[in-house]
């Protein structure tokens, strides 16, 4: 099993409260700068201690994440992270210009010497408000944008694109991706529709902000669809994102995590604005298993989150055991370890513990 380190790159300034969007009146440029530098340092350390990937993602308009454009962060990471792959999980392509996304991925792939992992997601419901895109069009936009991006990477002659949502009269990107035929593409597998689309288009699958039982169902569905479309996904086609906090002992890990959580928002980004989320839900955004989709985003107690594989917490031995269960139940080949809190030296020590005492052991998982 491979390991990735993901940080949402939270703003480490004074508490901002809950909700979405968050007003800029409380924003501190110094705190934001300190936060960004802290995360770059964490990613650099993750690279040095042996993580296979470092991961960034796109979110807007809130201190939950200082990363509205993960391409910019990934560009910086190409100069800091020297060995690990740089994963963008991902770009929220239905709200972006797909040709621009194709160009930016190609730039990062070139700058990194062919180390980019190209995650492309529909994003959380609030992101559709960010650039005023109708969430009812989310899935169709996503599917067309992904198709267009793959075409832009593949096609060596200038081409025009007559789409439903995108219309270009000439596309011919420079630079082009370094990896051939293309960087590995991941998409979210949270819904049945996504599982089928990913399998049909031979795209790898990622799970985030879900739990193992639900991801397990989706993974089974993905593999069944893949078989129907004539191929077999490997372990490396499935990545599972989970909050991880590792300390020297179980008690210390739980104490540190619990204390840090007291000052953090208690709801997910999606549920931070319930009125908005409700409006998006009525648009058909979630697809045919809407209630299951919404349920997985609801806040839960720590023990329940541990039991269902949403949080991995403890000493290195405990973390290994919990990851082994995730690997066994889900068949994921990559675990995307999320740093939920930036606790300074404590977090850095946790990354070192993971690198020294966890990663060598989970690599043995087959």
């Amino acid at each position, binding site marked *: 099993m491979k390991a990735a380190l993901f940080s949402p790159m939270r703003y480490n300034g004074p508490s901002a409260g809950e909700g979405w969007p968050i007003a800029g009146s409380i924003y501190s440029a110094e705190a934001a700068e300190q936060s960004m530098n802290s995360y770059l340092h964490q990613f650099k350390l993750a690279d040095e201690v042996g993580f296979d990937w470092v991961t960034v993602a796109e979110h807007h308009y809130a201190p939950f994440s200082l990363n509205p454009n993960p391409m910019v962060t990934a560009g910086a990471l190409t100069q800091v992270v020297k060995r690990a792959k740089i994963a963008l999980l991902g770009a929220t392509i239905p709200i972006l210009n797909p040709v621009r996304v194709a160009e930016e991925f190609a730039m990062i792939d070139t700058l990194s010497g062919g180390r980019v992992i190209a995650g492309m997601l529909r994003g959380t419901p609030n992101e559709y408000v960010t650039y005023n895109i109708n969430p009812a069009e989310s899935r169709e936009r996503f599917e*067309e944008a992904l*198709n*267009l991006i793959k*075409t832009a990477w*593949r*096609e*060596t*002659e*200038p*081409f*025009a*694109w*007559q*789409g*439903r949502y*995108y*219309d270009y*009269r*000439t596309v011919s990107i420079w630079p082009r991706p370094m990896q051939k035929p293309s960087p590995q593409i991941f998409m979210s597998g949270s819904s049945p529709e996504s599982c089928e689309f990913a399998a049909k288009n031979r795209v790898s699958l990622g799970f985030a902000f879900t739990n193992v039982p639900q991801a397990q169902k989706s993974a089974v569905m993905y593999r069944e669809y893949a078989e129907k479309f004539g191929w077999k996904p490997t372990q490396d086609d499935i990545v599972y994102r989970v909050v991880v906090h590792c300390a020297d002992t179980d008690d210390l890990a739980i104490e540190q995590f619990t204390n840090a959580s007291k000052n953090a928002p208690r709801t997910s980004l999606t549920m931070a604005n319930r009125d908005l989320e409700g409006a998006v839900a009525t648009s058909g955004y979630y697809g045919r298993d809407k209630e299951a989709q919404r349920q997985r985003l609801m806040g839960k107690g720590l023990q329940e989150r541990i039991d269902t594989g949403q949080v991995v917490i403890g000493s290195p031995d405990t973390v290994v055991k919990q990851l082994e269960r995730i690997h066994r139940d889900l068949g994921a080949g990559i675990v995307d370890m999320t740093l939920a809190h930036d606790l300074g030296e404590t977090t850095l020590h946790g990354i070192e513990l993971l690198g020294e005492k966890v990663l060598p052991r989970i690599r043995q998982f087959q």
Partner: protein
Amino acid sequence: MNAPHKHIRMLEDAGQGMPVVFLQSSEPTAAKVIEALKPNFHVVTFDISAAGTADGESGLLSAIAKLGTSVGVVASSAMATRVLKLALAHPDIINALALISPPPLTAADKELTAELVNMKPPVLALFGSRDAVDNAEGKRVYRQTIPKSHMMFVYDTDGAMAEQRPEAVAAALRDFMVVREGFLVTTKSGKIYP
């Protein structure tokens, strides 16, 4: 307009405006595209599947020439190769050419491919995105060899694009036939409110 030759069947003559001639086989697959173009174009459709003789082609060219000095031609997949040869020989009559899902050019087409560098009119080759990767090299030959050529992918279609997404095909033809090479530059307004 009457059928210009005994082996040419006229399927349609309707609409007003700039003339566009559809050259297709007996299968009337572009009916919805033609319907979408009629409000802006004088659309004449011929079934030329039986008109392979020199006599038949001569009659066809005469008919096209009678429509005016700026005539765009649209060829269906089955007729694409034949119409390409006509356009090579008569650029004064066929002023712009759009090919709907033309066949990939292979080594067997080397004589035609060698000639395509001499093509005078602008050419738009439309391919479906669903089968874009099939024989991709053969599809690129049009773009690589014809001087004023464009390759367009019509999303979520294959060779039956004129039936699957007629509005999308018609929109591409509309722009290309009106401004030819200038179709690269959009004239759609981005303004939301005045």
